[in-house]
């Protein structure tokens, strides 16, 4: 396994006198093989981006471990160990802030190599960078420009080249195309997919768009309020969704029965925040099929081959 994420939890506390805990991630566990793509789907605010930041070592987790090729990546303080710098990379959501606005594209492109103490003016690195640029479909005329002179799609491709220059083992794409035009989206996604296949990189693709995730991923994990509630191969989850929330997502996706679906759209209810349902299923307050047993939290169980779901009713069937 390339990446193994084990029981990652993250809590924030707020308030001075009556401190309140906000649980953002709860025991998230999954694994990712080399060359595989895992799509992570969920509504905004469900903790997808926090999870990405934790895996990269940008935000220390409250508890849990992350393993890259069998080695634990965090030191005691929750920081990334030095030897893992540069081996896990990310493409972020907003192209307008993805590059330092005061640095020319060329300087940004060479920066990862410099930081990894590799002389970027060595021939092999220059060759590699220009090859990467061609690979992402950009000419060298872009190198002397500033980021504000480039379009969003161009910047995301520059970022791809920048990130790949370190030959990472793992690439996290955090909604890399959600801010782009549809036509540009397809182009960037295709480049991303091709490069991943060519270099046998593990890809964690985060999105709220099931359409995109379904196309690019081998497996899909669905997240709701900081927990993975269903996890299955991409084809299987679309043919046979088990969790009611996944069914809702897929229902929205096909735009059928939208009236019924809107009734089940999760909303952050007051009860949930006040902690009454602390031990209930995360979807309890919104689930159309909620039963008495759902007051106990279900865990992720294998329902059929490779298909995991955290729902009592799915398990019973």
């Amino acid at each position: 396994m390339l990446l193994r994420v084990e029981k990652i939890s993250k809590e924030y506390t707020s308030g001075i006198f009556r401190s309140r805990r906000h649980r953002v991630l709860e025991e998230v566990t999954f694994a990712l093989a080399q060359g595989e793509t895992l799509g992570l789907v969920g509504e905004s605010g469900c903790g997808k981006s926090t999870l990405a930041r934790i895996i990269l070592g940008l935000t220390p987790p409250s508890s849990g471990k992350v393993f890259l090729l069998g080695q634990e990546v965090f030191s005691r303080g929750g920081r990334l160990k030095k030897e893992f710098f540069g081996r896990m990379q990310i493409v972020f959501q907003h192209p307008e802030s993805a590059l330092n606005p005061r640095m020319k594209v060329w300087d940004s492109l060479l920066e990862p190599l410099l930081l990894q103490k590799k002389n970027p003016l060595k021939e092999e690195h220059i060759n590699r960078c220009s090859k990467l640029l061609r690979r992402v479909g950009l000419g060298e005329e872009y190198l002397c420009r500033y980021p504000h002179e480039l379009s969003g799609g161009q910047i995301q491709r520059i970022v791809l080249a920048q990130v790949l220059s370190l030959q990472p083992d793992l690439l996290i794409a955090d909604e890399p195309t959600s801010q782009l035009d549809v036509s540009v989206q397809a182009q960037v996604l295709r480049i991303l997919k091709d490069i991943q296949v060519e270099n046998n990189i593990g890809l964690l693709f985060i999105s709220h768009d099931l359409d995109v995730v379904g196309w690019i991923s081998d497996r899909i994990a669905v997240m709701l309020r900081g927990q993975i509630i269903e996890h299955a191969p991409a084809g299987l989850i679309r043919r046979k969704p088990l969790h009611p929330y996944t069914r809702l997502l897929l229902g929205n996706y096909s735009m059928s029965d939208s009236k019924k679906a809107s009734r089940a759209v999760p909303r952050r209810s007051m009860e949930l925040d006040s902690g009454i349902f602390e031990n209930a299923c995360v979807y309890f307050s919104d689930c159309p099929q909620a039963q008495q047993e759902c007051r106990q939290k279900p865990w992720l169980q294998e329902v059929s081959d490779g298909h995991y779901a955290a729902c009592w009713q799915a398990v019973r069937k």
Partner: protein
Amino acid sequence: MCILENKLAFAGMVIIAMLVILALFAPLLAPHDPYVQSLGQSLIGPCRDYPFGTDEFGRCVLSRIIYGTRISLVIGLGVTTMSTIIGVVLGMVAGFHNGRLDEIIMRVVDVFLAFPGLILALVVAGLLGPGTLNVVIALTVVGWMGYARVIRGAVLAEKEKEYIGAVQTFGAGDCYIMLRHLLPNVMTPIVVMASAGVGYVILAAAGLSFLGLGAEPPAPVWGAMLNYGKAYLQSAPHLTIFPGLAIMITVLAFNFLGDGLRDQLDPRMKNLHFR
């Protein structure tokens, strides 16, 4: 839009350039020695020999104002430079490591801001005694907090941007990120603040020396000249008018420059230009 097209900013720059020339070449440009007293010629009004008249000891007011440019500029630029350095360092550290360190630094800032500025400067200058360097220290003590606050706010906003996260995954250290990425992107408000701040500092320095806390008496200081001239306000108004004008013109010039830089460096104005 080039800053030279902004008429006020351009005027400010021309005046500042002239002041710098005056300060650098004071011995060549001043018609008389600013220290030589000739009691027989005291309190003469403006005439051909003494364009701005003479003071009660018969010293040339114009020459003293020209020499005074040196002290004013040294104090203005010195205090602003030191305040900026202190403010930028503390503000960056506070904004970047928000948490306990941030709390401590910002509460210190609050304590300093809670004192009335000029009174604190008076106390510090009084404790340190007269002298140009002590004025610089006193005004720095009361002047750095604004820079720290502005920098901290800008760093807080900037460090959440995605490219900072990306650079961290490349393996960049904190110092590298602060110097290479954060500093260039938060300098704009500081440049604007500092250029207008020079004017304020010169004004405050004039206030201090008016109260007798500045360079030692024979030295030509604008604020002190106002102080000595006030006894002759009725009989020889030129003793106060001309140093006052010098202070006013200098402060205005730096304020014009600050306003112009703000318009120039504001990203929204820049975008207007591109569209």
